[in-house]
């Protein structure tokens, strides 16, 4: 395992180098006052703040992570399910899909009262927000993936008069996998934003922290929160990648990502 981790670190070295360059550049830009530090704090400043307020930031991060996991988990499950439903019953797709596009564009903040009243104040609303924001990419990508199944293979399956379930589980889902995984990765980022915005409205977690810091002009704290949320997103993408690799292990021909 340690060997693997080592290999992974080595494989990712361009990212580490780039990160280092980025941080140094950033530090320099702020040190030279090319950008005022009340707009963009330096990395060291952000780091100091993070260390200083670690207990609060840690707790907030955990709470946000929880909401994100919940929201993304459900949007993965229901996005894929919905896509299957739309795919299986075209009339439903033609009827409902436009409204999915419709709802996708509703800014969370403008339906905040509805959300809070339906889901309750606090975490439920945050979760709902993460969910709402992140379902569409999974839905759209899965749907495309299902539609792009190789027609030759579809024909082969049809010879045996498969049930819709068989067709879906043995053919269509496997061939949609690269689409689904990409959809989930796109959604991971959105779920993070959804959770943060949800917390602006319903309180708790990093969103609340960022919100408070923002009005108090604590840019260092704002960025500390932003960095933590981005770290969550990265972690999430990393987990998705690892899980999908483990799940697809021994199936190299389930086209790779």
């Amino acid at each position, binding site marked *: 395992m340690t060997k693997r981790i080592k290999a992974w670190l080595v494989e990712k070295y361009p990212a580490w180098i780039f990160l280092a360059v980025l941080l140094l550049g950033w530090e320099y830009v702020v040190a030279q006052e090319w950008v*005022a530090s*009340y*707009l963009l704090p330096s990395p060291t400043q952000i780091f100091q703040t993070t260390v200083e*307020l670690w207990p*609060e930031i840690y707790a907030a991060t955990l709470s946000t992570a929880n909401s994100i996991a919940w929201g993304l988990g459900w949007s993965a499950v229901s996005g894929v399910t919905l896509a299957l439903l739309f795919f299986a019953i075209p009339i439903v797709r033609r009827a409902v899909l436009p409204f999915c596009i419709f709802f996708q564009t509703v800014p969370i*903040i403008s339906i*905040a*009262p509805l959300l*809070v*009243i339906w889901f*309750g*104040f*606090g975490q439920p609303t945050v979760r709902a927000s993460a969910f709402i924001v992140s379902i569409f990419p999974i839905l759209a990508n899965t749907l495309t993936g299902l539609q792009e199944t190789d027609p030759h293979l579809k024909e082969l399956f049809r010879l045996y008069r498969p049930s819709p379930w068989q067709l879906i589980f043995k053919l269509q889902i496997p061939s949609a996998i690269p689409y689904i995984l990409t959809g989930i990765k796109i959604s991971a980022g959105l779920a993070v934003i959804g959770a943060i915005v949800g*917390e*602006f*409205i*319903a*309180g708790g977690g990093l*969103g*609340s*922290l960022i*919100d*408070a*810091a*923002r*009005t*108090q*002009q*604590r*840019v260092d*704290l704002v960025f500390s929160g932003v960095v933590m949320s981005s770290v969550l997103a990265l972690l999430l993408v990393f987990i998705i990648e690892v899980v999908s690799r483990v799940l697809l292990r021994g199936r190299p021909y389930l086209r790779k990502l």
Partner: protein
Amino acid sequence: ASPAPLVLALNWKPEPQFGGFYAAQVQGYYNDNGLDVDIIEGGSGTPTIQMLLAGRVDYAIVSADEVIIALARGGSDIVALFATYQTNPQGIMTHAERGFESIDDVLHSEGVLLWQSGLPYAQFFKKQYSPFKVVTAPYLGGIGNFQNDVKVSQQCFVTSEPLTAAAAGLKVKTFLVADSGYNPYTAVLVTQRQRWEKSPAEVKAMVAAVRSGWNNYLQDPAETNKAMLALNRAMSRETFTQSAQAQRELIKTPTTERVGEMTQARWQTLADQLLDIKVVRQPVSVDKVFVDL
């Protein structure tokens, strides 16, 4: 089992503007009055008044103009119980070096004014001072843009942003919105009329606890500030202290007899003003809008 605690919803984070409500908790005034109160904080976009209207929370802190608007929109009846700020703490913060003398100057000079254009006082200004020379743009909190450009003025709570600006070494001059004649009560404790009619004893106890809280906070905010500081690490201890200091005269004006008191006349003025600037479309009766306990 003991009954579920009463929920009091703030429309912003724990800050001195809610000091009395927290003081009542810290000092145990709620318990003394036989109440068990949970305070939940708000944030950007938290629909506090709608949460109250929908019965999701029992008490809420909102501003007086929100109450009038809600009544005009046909929401179920709400009733104001306790008005923290006698003088509206909203203001316009400008850079001192621009030498403005009044809101009039700000609006009729070149520059940028950051504010939430939907706020009733913004409508009031539009009616009162149009046409503006200043360019208006949205305000999203913080003083970043203000700090960056001397031409920028912005909306503020006089108990908050000017202190932040001063801490950042800026010289600012702040004008109270109230000076323009638009002066709604702010940080008003409200509940549904139904609640007041059903259990007046509880409501009275609530107001009593809150009033004790505020009296305590006005006297010595240190202990409560410490408690709030733990809940809002974005605000520094000094800012808490300064802010608590700055708001005193807005809560307890020379004419204030009891903290939190309200008058029919002021509610009426507000209702008239809102009608005048078309924020509400039909007259709202203020006869029963508050109970002064």
